[in-house]
């Protein structure tokens, strides 16, 4: 296992009204990875980020970042953490360049116009550096928040719903930006509603619901373990009984014998190979078919299954 950059143990947050937003969360984040935290609204994603970033006071539990305890060595830890919030919260009357420069100073870094320029250019904001933030489009405003979060060159970056409410083109652009950050060695923790985002971006995925982490695993391992292939084979003539050569496959007869349904595989492609073998077995047994509809399950299916089961 790689060195953990963030270690959360037994983290619980109970708000004043008695609502338990986090319930004994244990989580370790590896250096250099992209970790996606998935969960429905109110699951505790933003509270978890807030607890690490100093916005939320944990009720109990410990958080260590870079080996430092956030309760005591918070200055050292926070200087190396960046946060892009969900809401477009920034001083809208401030020019872009000055806002980014402010963030760098706030986190204790010496002024470095060349570095600020580099960040602004990487986010296509350089031409807008003298514009008031309020005059920018929603997508550009979100980039400003990213630029502010990157201004102090954090080693650990939190992105809370970075693509919420942005168009498809900008989402793809954000994904590219996050990939660049990974290449630069920044550890990224992102929350998202878009499961495909996690599927494309993440190395590991955590699924949270009602303040509890239901599962944390490598994305590929999770897909392999919980992924499925589903194939619907439309038959030319009705079938009442499965021949012995076909019954070895995980298939069932449906639609009054006019359809064979295969559910199996593991999310790594084994299901597709199974279906190919199944069709050969059908041909060998003299069973004719007129169509095949095959579908691999996505991370979204796994997410929905997991969240549904725990409801």
């Amino acid at each position: 296992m790689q060195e953990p950059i963030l270690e959360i143990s037994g983290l619980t947050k109970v708000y004043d009204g008695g609502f338990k937003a986090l319930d004994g969360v244990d989580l370790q984040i590896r250096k250099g990875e992209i970790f996606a935290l998935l969960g429905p609204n109110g699951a505790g994603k933003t509270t978890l980020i807030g607890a690490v970033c100093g916005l939320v006071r944990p009720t109990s539990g410990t958080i260590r970042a870079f080996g430092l305890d956030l309760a005591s060595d918070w200055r050292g830890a926070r200087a190396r953490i960046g946060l892009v919030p969900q809401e477009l919260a920034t001083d809208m009357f401030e020019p872009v360049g000055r806002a980014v420069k402010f963030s760098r100073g706030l986190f204790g870094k010496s002024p470095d116009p060349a570095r600020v320029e580099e960040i602004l250019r990487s986010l296509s904001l350089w031409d807008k550096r003298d514009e008031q933030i309020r005059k920018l489009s929603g997508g550009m405003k979100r980039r400003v928040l990213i630029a502010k979060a990157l201004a102090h060159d954090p080693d650990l970056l939190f992105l809370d719903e970075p693509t919420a409410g942005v168009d498809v083109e900008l989402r793809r652009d954000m994904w590219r930006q996050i990939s660049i950050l990974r290449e630069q060695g920044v550890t990224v923790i992102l929350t998202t509603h878009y499961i495909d985002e996690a599927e494309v971006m993440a190395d590991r995925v955590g699924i949270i619901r009602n303040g509890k982490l239901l599962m944390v695993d490598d994305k590929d391992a999770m897909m392999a373990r919980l992924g499925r292939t589903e194939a619907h084979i439309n038959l030319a003539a009705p079938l009442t009984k499965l021949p012995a050569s076909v019954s070895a496959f995980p298939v069932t007869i449906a639609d009054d014998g006019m359809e064979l349904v295969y559910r199996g595989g593991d999310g790594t492609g084994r299901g597709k190979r199974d279906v190919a073998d199944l069709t050969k077995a059908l041909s060998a047994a003299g069973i004719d078919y007129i169509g095949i509809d095959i579908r691999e399950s996505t991370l979204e299916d796994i997410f929905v299954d997991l969240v549904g089961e725990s409801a």
Partner: protein
Amino acid sequence: MTGFNLRGAYAIYVRELMRAMRTAFQSILAPVLTTSLYFIVFGAAIGGRMQAVDGVNYAAFIVPGLLLLTLLSESTSNASFGIYMPRFTGTIYELLSAPVGVAETLLGFVGAAATKSLILAAIILLTATFFVDYRIEHPILAIGYIMLVASAFSLFGFILGIWADNFEKLGIFPMLILMPLTFLGGTFYSIDMLPEPWSTIALFNPIVYLVNGLRWTFYGSSDVNIWVSFGLTISFLAICIAIIGFIFRTGYRLRT
């Protein structure tokens, strides 16, 4: 980083001053205009018909009080808006997630609010020279006392800005408590001029001690013991710092 984040404090300080520059008309010109009107009405127009107070020409007598009136209201409102607006707009997240603690935050926000008040005080005193012939007997002490009052009420404004959870609460204290107390605190008169029991009741108004402390630095005369004035102002400042320390320790109205 383990120690004091001086760059962080400086970043807040500069940004707060820049924010004031954006609203220079509201921040500087409006108070100067208001004070000038007071000088014209109470100093030049009415003052000429008033008797000297403690040997000081009436128009000159009201200069320290008017200066204090502006200092109190501007220090309070500058600092309260300075911290309330980030809370209201959500930009407070950046401050809370940054390696800045109570000392950096105070130096940044309260330092900037106090600086604005001091600039304002200088402009008002300069403006007053056009209307009134006044003197400052203890200029160093006057500057020190103005800085003390500006800092104390900027701290107070900071507390107000954290306590307030809507704009009404933000404005209610300066308008309904601070302003009446200042008017009744001997800004325009010596409390010796009040009949009993009002002159005794006036001694329970803390603003009386602030006005007289500043007036003593100008003309060397005061209705009350000036050490009580200085002591009260420093105590008020210390209480405000203690309250802000408590706010940061507990996260009151800052962290959920």
